[in-house]
């Protein structure tokens, strides 16, 4: 790859031939894509396809075997600490501290990401009001229902107005209605100019994204808007698109 290839200025994520191998096993196979500011970018695929591995590399949680990527303009090899300042993250395990209260979790992350101390309390109240969680301000996170935890975790992840927020399977284990509500929050964030990078194995959520990629066996086998993909594969919905691609897949369960 050309080392002096210029990075498109308006793209918040640029990925070139990113690869991750664990011994003989190639989890992520030379993937390549770009994500623009304010986009809702979906990373679809079956379990074990490599989505989470790819995302972890972009967040600086894992070092690639080869290839390059830039997140928020920073090189993921050399400037990963700078990347971390501009991003938010929410993982499958929700990563809020269960034994801390709602407002304590917010304060912790706000402080870590540099929100000025004076502003934390009013911003917290504002957020809780918007979510309708005012009564739960002093509740321990472990006492909240799953759907609320997810919304809270997302809100905490974007509290400091990051450029990009990475969501790793954020809606696991809740009913479709709750998932819809969650995606409302994602839309609001995107409207504010926050780029949303989300992995999921729910194909219906693909419809909510601006563009999606579908990963199969570590490769990106499709990358386009949901509308275009359905036309191209002559499918009624994203599920059918996926079925056609997955028929050739070798890896299923991880």
């Amino acid at each position: 790859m050309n080392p002096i290839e210029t990075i498109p200025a308006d793209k918040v994520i640029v990925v070139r031939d990113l690869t991750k191998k664990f011994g003989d096993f190639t989890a992520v196979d030379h993937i390549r894509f770009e994500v623009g500011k304010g986009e809702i970018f979906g990373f679809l695929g079956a379990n074990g396809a490599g989505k989470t591995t790819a995302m972890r590399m972009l967040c600086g949680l894992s070092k690639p075997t080869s290839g390059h990527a830039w997140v928020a303009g920073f090189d993921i090899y050399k400037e990963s600490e700078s990347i971390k300042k501009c991003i938010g993250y929410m993982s499958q395990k929700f990563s809020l501290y269960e034994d801390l209260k709602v407002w304590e979790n917010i304060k912790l992350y706000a402080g870590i990401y540099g929100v000025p101390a004076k502003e934390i309390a009013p911003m917290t109240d504002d957020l809780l009001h918007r979510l309708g969680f005012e009564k739960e301000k002093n509740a321990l996170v472990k006492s909240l229902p799953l759907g609320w935890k997810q919304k809270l975790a997302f809100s905490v992840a974007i509290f400091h107005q990051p450029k990009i927020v990475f969501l790793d399977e954020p809606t696991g284990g809740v009913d479709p209605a709750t998932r819809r509500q969650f995606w409302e929050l994602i839309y609001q964030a995107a409207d504010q100019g926050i780029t949303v990078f989300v992995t999921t194995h729910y194909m219906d959520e693909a419809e909510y994204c601006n563009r999606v990629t579908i990963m199969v066996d570590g490769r990106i086998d499709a990358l386009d808007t949901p509308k275009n993909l359905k036309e191209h594969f002559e499918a009624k919905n994203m599920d059918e698109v996926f079925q056609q691609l997955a028929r050739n897949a070798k890896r299923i369960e991880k």
Partner: protein
Amino acid sequence: MIIKYLIEKEFKQFRRNPFLSKFVFIFPFIMLAILPLAANFEVRDLNLSVIDNNHTPYSQRLVQKIAASEYFHITDISYSYRSSLKSIEQDKSDLILEIPPRFEQELVSGQDAKVMISANAVNAMKGGLGSAYLAGIVAEYNAEIRAELMPAGGKSLQSGMDITKIFRFNPLLKYKYFMVPAIMVMLLSMICGFLPAFNIVMEKENGTIEQMNVTPVGKFSLILSKLIPYWVVGFLVLNICFGVAWLFYGMWPKGSLLTIYLFASIFVLAFSGLGLIISNYSKTLQQAMFMVFFIIITFIFMSGLYTPVDNMPQWAQYISDISPLKYFIRVMRLVYLKGSAAADLREPFMALCGFAIILNTWAVISYKKSQK
């Protein structure tokens, strides 16, 4: 200052953990109360089975003399070696004294009179010391008899050297003086070394550590935030220990508290480093626990907690040389019991500083925010 938020979080979690917050204060209390009582190597109150086949005033006097000693209880008077042996098999007696039938005759006629001492040596020390004490009483008795039986001119055979034994710092040779300072060190190491390690590994296991790894929080801040609360708690516990030791045992450091605090700080620094290393190399709580157990067995036991380092074979002493505990236990005992000042303790000071530097460097290097 980001670390302020992290420390706040740690303290809150600590307080809310119902088990941990109570454990950290109750456990030292229990240890200090029970361990010195249990850990007693004194050889005393030995049960003696006596076989007197002689039945003369001389043999009876010997038996009475032994009975009067505070070391022995005569629990069994039997008529055969076999039945005495049975009482040893059943652990009813620790030693057997057999006085042969012609004891008095042999003694009075100027020949050598023999007695048989058999000791249960499963516990080698008990057997060894016990039989030595008994032999000592026999020797005293011997001297008394000799003085009576010999004319006044036998003075030249009397011992001319008067040996006096003086026990400094602990005249009554109480075990707790030996144990209590060492127990404090052990408690401090557990609270400041092992508990933070478990804390970190638990976060690894349930994934919350990843959330931290993806934030701009630096390695140092994260590690410090995990350690500082435990340092504070450890310091508190140390002071509580001083109080408990005074309350229960009337022990108060003879030397300066400041010296103890100084050494404690360096020791805690070193030992938390060790705890961090453990947590860096463990993926699950079970692994961490095993490593900790391993360290307790090797380093804590070999650092002179229960048995003095000087008694150990050379190879074991080398191992103890790489244990920070050995040095701090020595210091604690020296300051607590003898009032040694910092000037006397230069060598352990250097050693502990060395440990602090090496262990913490290793810990920081091996902590990885991103995996391979």
